[in-house]
C-alpha cells in the first residue's frame, strides 16, 4: 500500500524524471558532451537540492542518516561539478586528458561510497552537522589537492591504454562498499520507514549499477557511460525522493497526523472531561455576571429539579437566604483579577421554601483588561454536614454548659511522668489560671501540695496508687475530698477516675472529672438540718401530728403526742387509713365533707372542732388543723394533720358558760330587784307628796337613803354589765362553740 501510496504521491515527479531522463538520453544523439554535462548538472542540482532539503529539514528528520547523506552529497556534487567541468571536450582544465575526469569520478564515487557506508553508522549518534560539513570540506580539499596539485591520485585512464586497473578495481571496491552499505542499512532498517528504506536501497543499487556500467566503458563517450550516468541521476533522484519524503512530506504528514491525533485526543479528553463533570455529585456551573447560565451539570440542574437545558441560556439566581444576601454580595464583589477564586458557605431558600446550606468555590474569569467575563463555580449541598456539625456543636455546647452547671472539669494524668494535664475549665474551678500556674501541666506532688486539703491528701494519694496498680480496663473510682482553691476557699470535690491501659494491660494514663459539690453538699447538709428540725419539731409538738397521704389517706408519720392522745403505738397507726381515729363511718364522712370543699376551692382550712375516738373507745373533743401538701407540679400529695385534745378547754368552756349564765341571771335579778324596790318607793313618795305634803320631807329623806343604797347596787350592776359586755366582745365567753365551726384561735389570744 505504502508503495502505491508513494508512487501516487510522486507520480508527477517520477514522470518529470522519466521525461528528463529521456531528453537527457536523447541529447547524447546530438552531442555526448551535452548529454554528459546535462546529466551531471542534473545530478549535481539534485545533490544540491538534497543538501538544501536535508539541511533545512534536519530538525524534522527522524534519524540522522539522511542529513549525513545530504551533507555528503553536497561535496560529492562538488567533485562531480569539477568532474563535469574537466570532462573531455569541455576544455576548461587543459593538459589533463581523460584521466582527470575519471580520477574525479573515482574520487566522487569513493566519497559517495564512503558516505553511504558511514551514514548508517551515524544513525544512533548525535550528528554535529557543521562539524561534518567541515570534515567533508577537508576531504574535498585533500582530494582536489591530491589530483590537481600533488598529482598523487592514481591514474585512472591512460590515453591509448584505456581504464587503468586501479580504476576498474576501484569501481569494484566502490560497488562492494555500496553493497556493504546496503547491508549496514538493512541491519538498521528499523530506524527507517519502509518506503524510505526502499528508496535509499534502490538508490544504492542504482549507484552500484552505475558503477558496474562504468567498469565496462571503453570510451568516455561510450554507451555504458551513458547508462552509468542515467543510473547515477536515478540514484540521486531516489535519495532526493527519500529526503523529500522523510524530510518534508512526512514531517508535514506527521504534523497533520499529530494534529489529527491531538484533535482526536482532545475530543476524547473532552468527552472524558464531560463525563467526569456530569458524573460529579458536586454542582458545576458557569454563568455571566447577569446570572445567565452558560453551563450547568446534571447534578446542579437536578438539585433544582430542572434539566440543564432549562437552565442554560437563562438567567437563574437561586434565592439566597435574606440573612446571607449581603455576605454573598460582598463575596462576589471581593473577587478580582488578583483574587479570582474563593469559597463561601451560605443558605438558599429552595422553591418549596426549604432552607438549605450550600458550599461554593467560585472563580471569577476576567479578560485581559481586567473586566469580569463570567463565573465558574463548583459547589455542593452541605445542609446535612452543616446540621451534623451544628448538632455536634450543640452537643458540645450543651456538654460544656452541663459541665459548667455541674461545676465539672476534666483532667488527665500521665502515670509514667506523674504529670497532670489540666485545662482552663479545671483551673476556673480552682479559682486560678494557666498563666498563674505556669501552664496546663502540673506534677502530681505540686498539685497535691498546692490544692489538696492537707487532711485529705492521703485520700488522693491512695486513689492514685489504686489507679496505678489496676489491671482492669473498666476501672472507675469515685472519691470525695476537699481542695483549697487559689483564693483560699475550701471546696468539696467529687473525683471520678478512669484509666487507659497499654497493650500489656498496664495503666499508662488516668483521666477523670472533678466536680465541685460544695453547694450540693451544703444544700444536703441544710436539707438534713431542716429534716432534723422538722422531725424534732414534729416530735415535740404537744398536739397529735400526722403526715398523711392524699388518696388513700394513709398515716405516713405520727408523733409521740399522737401516741399519747389516741392511745395507739406508732406501729399501730402508720400505714393505716385514718378511719379508726373517728367515732364511726358517718363521722369520717362528715369530716371529709367538711375538709374537701376547702381543698377544691384552694382555700386554707380554718381550724375546726371534731369529735374523735381513742383506742380505748372513749370519744373526745379535738381541734383539727389540716394543711394540704403539694408536689412539685402542684398535685395534692397529702396532708399535715394536727389534732389537739381539747377536752380540758371544752370542760373549762362549759364551766365558764355555766358561770356566765349564772352571772347573767344574777345581774338580771339585780337590775330587776333595783327596779322592784324603786317602784314601791316611788309609790310611797308619790302618795305622801300628794296626800301628806307636811310629812314629805322626812319621808323623802328616808326614801333617798334607800335609793342611795340601791344606787350603789346600780353602780355595781353597771360596772358588771360593762365587764360582761367586754367579756362577750373579746373572749366570746358565754358563746356557743358548735362542732365543725371553723374557729380562729387568734381571736382568742
Amino acid at each position: 500500500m505504502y508503495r502505491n501510496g508513494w508512487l501516487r504521491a510522486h507520480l508527477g515527479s517520477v514522470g518529470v524524471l522519466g521525461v528528463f531522463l529521456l531528453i537527457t538520453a536523447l541529447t547524447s544523439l546530438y552531442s555526448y558532451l551535452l548529454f554528459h554535462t546535462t546529466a551531471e548538472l542534473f545530478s549535481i542540482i539534485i545533490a544540491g537540492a538534497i543538501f538544501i532539503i536535508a539541511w533545512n529539514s534536519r530538525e524534522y528528520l527522524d534519524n540522522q542518516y539522511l542529513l549525513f547523506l545530504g551533507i555528503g552529497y553536497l561535496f560529492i556534487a562538488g567533485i562531480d561539478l569539477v568532474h563535469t567541468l574537466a570532462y573531455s571536450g569541455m576544455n576548461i582544465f587543459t593538459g589533463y586528458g581523460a584521466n582527470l575526469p575519471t580520477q574525479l569520478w573515482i574520487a566522487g564515487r569513493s566519497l559517495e561510497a564512503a558516505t553511504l557506508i558511514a551514514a548508517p553508522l551515524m544513525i544512533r549518534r548525535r550528528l554535529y552537522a557543521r562539524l561534518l560539513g567541515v570534515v567533508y570540506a577537508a576531504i574535498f580539499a585533500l582530494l582536489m589537492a591530491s589530483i590537481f596539485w600533488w598529482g598523487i591520485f592514481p591514474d585512472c585512464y591512460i590515453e591509448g591504454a584505456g581504464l587503468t586497473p586501479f580504476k576498474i578495481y576501484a569501481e569494484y571496491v566502490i560497488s562492494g562498499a555500496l553493497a556493504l552499505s546496503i547491508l549496514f542499512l538493512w541491519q538498521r532498517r528499523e530506524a527507517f520507514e519502509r518506503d524510505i528504506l526502499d528508496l535509499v536501497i534502490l538508490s544504492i543499487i542504482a549507484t552500484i549499477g552505475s558503477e558496474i556500467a562504468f567498469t565496462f566503458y571503453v570510451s568516455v563517450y561510450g554507451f555504458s557511460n551513458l547508462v552509468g550516468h542515467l543510473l547515477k541521476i536515478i540514484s540521486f533522484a531516489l535519495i532526493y525522493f527519500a529526503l523529500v519524503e522523510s524530510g518534508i512530506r512526512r514531517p508535514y504528514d506527521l504534523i497533520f497526523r499529530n494534529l489529527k491525533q491531538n484533535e482526536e485526543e482532545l475530543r476524547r479528553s473532552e468527552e472524558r472531561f464531560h463525563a467526569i463533570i456530569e458524573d460529579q455529585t458536586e454542582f458545576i456551573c458557569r454563568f455571566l455576571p447577569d446570572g445567565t447560565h452558560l453551563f450547568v451539570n446534571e447534578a446542579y440542574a437536578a438539585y433544582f429539579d430542572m434539566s440543564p437545558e432549562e437552565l442554560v441560556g437563562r438567567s437563574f439566581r437561586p434565592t439566597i437566604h435574606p440573612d446571607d444576601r449581603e455576605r454573598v454580595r460582598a463575596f462576589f464583589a471581593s473577587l478580582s483579577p488578583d483574587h479570582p477564586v474563593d469559597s463561601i458557605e451560605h443558605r438558599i431558600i429552595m422553591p418549596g421554601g426549604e432552607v438549605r446550606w450550600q458550599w461554593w468555590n467560585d472563580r471569577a474569569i476576567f479578560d485581559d483588561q481586567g473586566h469580569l467575563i463570567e463565573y465558574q463555580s463548583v459547589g455542593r449541598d452541605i445542609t446535612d454536614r452543616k446540621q451534623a456539625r451544628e448538632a455536634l456543636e450543640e452537643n458540645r455546647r450543651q456538654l460544656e454548659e452541663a459541665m459548667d452547671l455541674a461545676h465539672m472539669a476534666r483532667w488527665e494524668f500521665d502515670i509514667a511522668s506523674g504529670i497532670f494535664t489540666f485545662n482552663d475549665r479545671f483551673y476556673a474551678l480552682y479559682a486560678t489560671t494557666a498563666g498563674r500556674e505556669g501552664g496546663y501541666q502540673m506534677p502530681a506532688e505540686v498539685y497535691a501540695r498546692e490544692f489538696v486539703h492537707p487532711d485529705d491528701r492521703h485520700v488522693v494519694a491512695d486513689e492514685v496508687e489504686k489507679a496505678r496498680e489496676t489491671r482492669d480496663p473498666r476501672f472507675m473510682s469515685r472519691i470525695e475530698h476537699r481542695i483549697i482553691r487559689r483564693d483560699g476557699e475550701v471546696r468539696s470535690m467529687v473525683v471520678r477516675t478512669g484509666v487507659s491501659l497499654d497493650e500489656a494491660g498496664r495503666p499508662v494514663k488516668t483521666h477523670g472529672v472533678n466536680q465541685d459539690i460544695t453547694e450540693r453538699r451544703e444544700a444536703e447538709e441544710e436539707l438534713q438540718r431542716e429534716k432534723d428540725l422538722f422531725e424534732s419539731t414534729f416530735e415535740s409538738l404537744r398536739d397529735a401530728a400526722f403526715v398523711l397521704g392524699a388518696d388513700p389517706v394513709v398515716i405516713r408519720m405520727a408523733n409521740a403526742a399522737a401516741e399519747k392522745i389516741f392511745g395507739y403505738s406508732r406501729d399501730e397507726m402508720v400505714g393505716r387509713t385514718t378511719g379508726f381515729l373517728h367515732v364511726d363511718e358517718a363521722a369520717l364522712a362528715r369530716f371529709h365533707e367538711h375538709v374537701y370543699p376547702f381543698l377544691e376551692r384552694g382555700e386554707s382550712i380554718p381550724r375546726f372542732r371534731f369529735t374523735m375516738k381513742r383506742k380505748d373507745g372513749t370519744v373526745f373533743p379535738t381541734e383539727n388543723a389540716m394543711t394540704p401538701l403539694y408536689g412539685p407540679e402542684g398535685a395534692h400529695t397529702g396532708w399535715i394533720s394536727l389534732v389537739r385534745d381539747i377536752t380540758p378547754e371544752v370542760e373549762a368552756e362549759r364551766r365558764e358558760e355555766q358561770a356566765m349564765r349564772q352571772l347573767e341571771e344574777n345581774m338580771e335579778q339585780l337590775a330587776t330587784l333595783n327596779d322592784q324596790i324603786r317602784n314601791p318607793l316611788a309609790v310611797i313618795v308619790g302618795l305622801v307628796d300628794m296626800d301628806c305634803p307636811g310629812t314629805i320631807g322626812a319621808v323623802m329623806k328616808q326614801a333617798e337613803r334607800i335609793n342611795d343604797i340601791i344606787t350603789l347596787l346600780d353602780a355595781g350592776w353597771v360596772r358588771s354589765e360593762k365587764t360582761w359586755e367586754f367579756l362577750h366582745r373579746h373572749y366570746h365567753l358565754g358563746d356557743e362553740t358548735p362542732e365543725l365551726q371553723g374557729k380562729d384561735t387568734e381571736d382568742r389570744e
Partner: protein
Amino acid sequence: MTDILLVDDNPDICRIYHRMLSKMGYAVETVESGAEALSGLAEDRPALVLLDLMMEPMDGWEVLRRMRADDRMQDVPVIILTGKMLTPDDVLRYGDQIHGFVMKPLRRADLEDVVREFFLEAEDIEARTRNARERGVDEATIREYVALRHQVRVLTEMRGCLDRVLGGGDPDTGGDRPELADIRTRLDDAKARLGELETVIAG
C-alpha cells in the same frame, strides 16, 4: 285628745302619776303593759309617752323599738321613767330615740319639772323651726336639728345619771371613766353638729 300616755305595769304608780299629771292640767292616759301601749298609740297619738322599762312580758325597750319601727308612732316623743339603772350601752343604743330620761322614785315637783321642761323645749324647738322654715331652711336640716336638740339633752341627762351612779369625775366632760368615753364622744359630736345647725336655724 290625750296629752300624755303613761306606760307602767305597776298600777299604783299609774294612779299616783296620773293624779300628779292631771293636776298639772294634762289629759293623761295610763296603760299597764307594752301591748296596750302600742294598741293605744295606734289609735290615738299623744303629745308625750312616759315609758317604764321593766315590764313583763314586753319590756320598755321593746315597746320603743316597735314604736320607732311603726310609721304611725315613730316620731311620738318618749321619756323613759324607770327604776332600773341604765347601762352605757343602753345610752348609746337608745339615746337618739328618746326625748328624756328620769329615774324613780321622784317627787311630784320633779315629775312636773320633767314634763314642763319637755314641753317648753318642744315649744322652743317648734318656734325656731317654724321660723327657719319660713326662711326656707330645708326640711332635712330642720329634722336633723330637732333630733340633735333632743339627743344632746337626753345624752346629757343620761350621762349625768351614770355619773351620779358611778360617782366622781367631771360630769361635763365624762371624766376619766373609760366606760363613758363612747358616750362622751357621741355627745361631743352631737353638740358640735348642733352648734353648726343653730346658726343655720337661727339665721
